């Protein structure tokens, strides 16, 4: 049973990690928690589902479709709910937090009107492919999820540290005004960030659908809450923190059920956060942020 639970935990953890990467990227650059991220990847999941189950397109095309839609949504989110706040004096981070909450309420209810309430099956023949590893069956989807999450993490880390765009992004994250003075088009960088993060949400959405066989307009909320928990204890803005945090949470939830009480499964994320934050207020991988403890 241990091996199976380990696989369950890693799969769940990888999904959490992908969700958390989206949050952490936006936070790293903008210092904003994008509360609409969960709803954006929920839309990604629906687009993927419609393309696969209703239109019958091959899976990679479904991924691309989800990425296109969520990327576009990220663009609109940035234009409609974030950018107008950047230029306004007196707009605290709280204001953008609330405007993204507004967007998330809007999207959740819009999804209900557009896609209908309740669960929708997410079926692809691909999701049925499995192979035995020792005594247990491993589904290809589980491997794929782990691989994609690792790839996204490595890709992001590389992009941030090696490429021009990535460096400009980091400069933007470091100090918005200075980066602007140095000739970085910060508005564009921010748009790019939000679009990339949202597109990653699209990927996450399709993977979640495949992993759990169903989707509904509430998955953004429950997954989003976990994603938030992860970036906090992984360390805000840290790519590795999101990955490590995701895996830790996935494994702890699974093992709490396996060896403890399943009644506390959903609460374990927050028990961990509180524990970690009390020891390391900046999170596992976070740099001591200004204002945290003195």
């Amino acid at each position, binding site marked *: 049973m241990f091996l199976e*639970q380990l696989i369950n935990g890693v799969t*769940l953890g990888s999904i959490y990690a992908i969700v958390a990467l989206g949050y952490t990227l936006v936070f790293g650059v903008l210092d904003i928690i994008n509360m609409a991220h969960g709803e954006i990847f929920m839309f990604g999941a629906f687009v993927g589902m419609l393309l696969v189950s209703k239109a019958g397109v091959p899976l990679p095309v479904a991924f691309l479709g989800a990425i296109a839609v969520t990327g576009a949504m990220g663009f609109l989110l940035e234009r409609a709910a974030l950018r107008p706040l950047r230029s306004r004096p007196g707009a605290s981070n709280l204001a953008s937090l609330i405007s993204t909450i507004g967007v998330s309420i809007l999207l959740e*209810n819009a999804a*209900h009107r557009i896609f209908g309430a309740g669960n929708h099956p997410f079926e692809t023949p691909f999701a049925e492919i499995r192979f035995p590893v020792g005594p247990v069956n491993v*589904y290809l989807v589980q491997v794929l999820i782990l691989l994609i999450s690792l790839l996204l993490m490595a890709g992001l880390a590389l992009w941030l540290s090696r490429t021009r765009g990535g460096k400009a992004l980091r400069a933007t994250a470091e100090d918005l005004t200075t980066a602007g003075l140095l000739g970085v088009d910060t508005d564009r960088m921010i748009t790019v960030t939000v679009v990339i993060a949202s597109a990653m949400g699209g990927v996450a959405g399709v993977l979640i659908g495949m992993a759990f066989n169903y989707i509904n307009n509430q998955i953004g909320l429950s997954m989003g809450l976990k994603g938030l928990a992860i970036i906090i204890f992984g360390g805000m803005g840290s790519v590795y923190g999101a990955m490590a945090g995701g895996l830790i949470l996935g494994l702890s939830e699974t093992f709490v059920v396996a060896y403890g009480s399943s009644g506390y*499964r959903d609460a374990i994320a927050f028990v961990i956060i509180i524990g970690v934050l009390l020891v390391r207020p900046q999170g596992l991988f976070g740099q001591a942020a200004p204002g945290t403890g003195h």
Partner: protein
Amino acid sequence: MKVRLQALAVLSSALFALVFLGAEKPRPRVEPIKARIGVISIITGQGAGYGEAITNGIRLARDEVNARGEVYIDLKIEDSSGKQEQALSAAQKLIHSEQVVAIIGPTLSNEMKVVGPEANASGVPIMGTSTTAKGITQIGKYVFRNALPESQAIPASIGMAVKKYNLRQVALLYGNDDVFTKSGFDTMKEVSENRKLRILTVQEFQKGQADYKAQLTKIASLRPDAVFCSALYEEGAVILSQARKMGIKVPFVGGNGFNSPKVIEIARDAADGLIVATPWFVDRNDPKVKAFVAKYEKAYGKKPDQFAAQAYDAFHIVANALKAAGAADRDRLRDALAATKDFDGVLGKFSFDAERDVVMEPNVLIVQGGKFRVFQ
């Protein structure tokens, strides 16, 4: 002689029919009893899937009743968003602003626990169509329900399953943060203990959880003869599909919340082996049921689930009681409702007991080959 007699018989029956019809025609058209009935349902937010089925069923019944002309019902549907405060505000609006004669709903037992006392205190009959938790009708004499409580459904399904499969050891799985699934679980546990079944493990899950693999892996490792699962169909379908995928082939026994075409739609083959006890059987060989299913499918593009069927029957029960009461009066309607006996609806024969709770024989159904069938 014989021929004459026959002719006479034909003639006289024709005459009789003529007289009868003639008498029917000139009967003065009675003004229908006009009444306003309120509905509280989940239209937005989590659980809107149930609310949608319920309001669909009610609308269909309303159209039928109004077309018949004996009573004319003006429906006021209010959203509760699945929240108690919203349900209470909606109830107050219906009771005091809309002056409804009765309320159907709300959807969740939680909501009923807040709304019920208020309706009862205001003397407005209220009827739950999906509130299956314990202690609902005990709120007061104006509170009714036609939803078969899990305390009646589950013993029937477990009883049949134990007999058929000779179950000895079982695993229990339930949602611990919801009144409905928690009550169902309490009954399952009680019934299992009474039947001296060995409970290998009790696993919990929480609303909105996407992944049940950890719990299911644990259950699988203990090799139960069956899994008793107290879940609503939204979660239940996902649990089934994930369970089968990881190799749990044993029967699943659920309560009546598990009974929905949605289960099959979402879980597909994985739904095979699900046993539920429920008054609602979509493929029952009964003209009433067939007509209802056909109409519902035509109107909403899908088959009715038990939430729709219970709401549909509930509306007819209220309409009948209204006819019996003879006027849109809350107290007379309450008394007429309480007197409902052997109402013949799509769920079968229905009566209220002394505590305004359900008297009904549940069917035990099993999913086989992607269809609900009677379990024998």
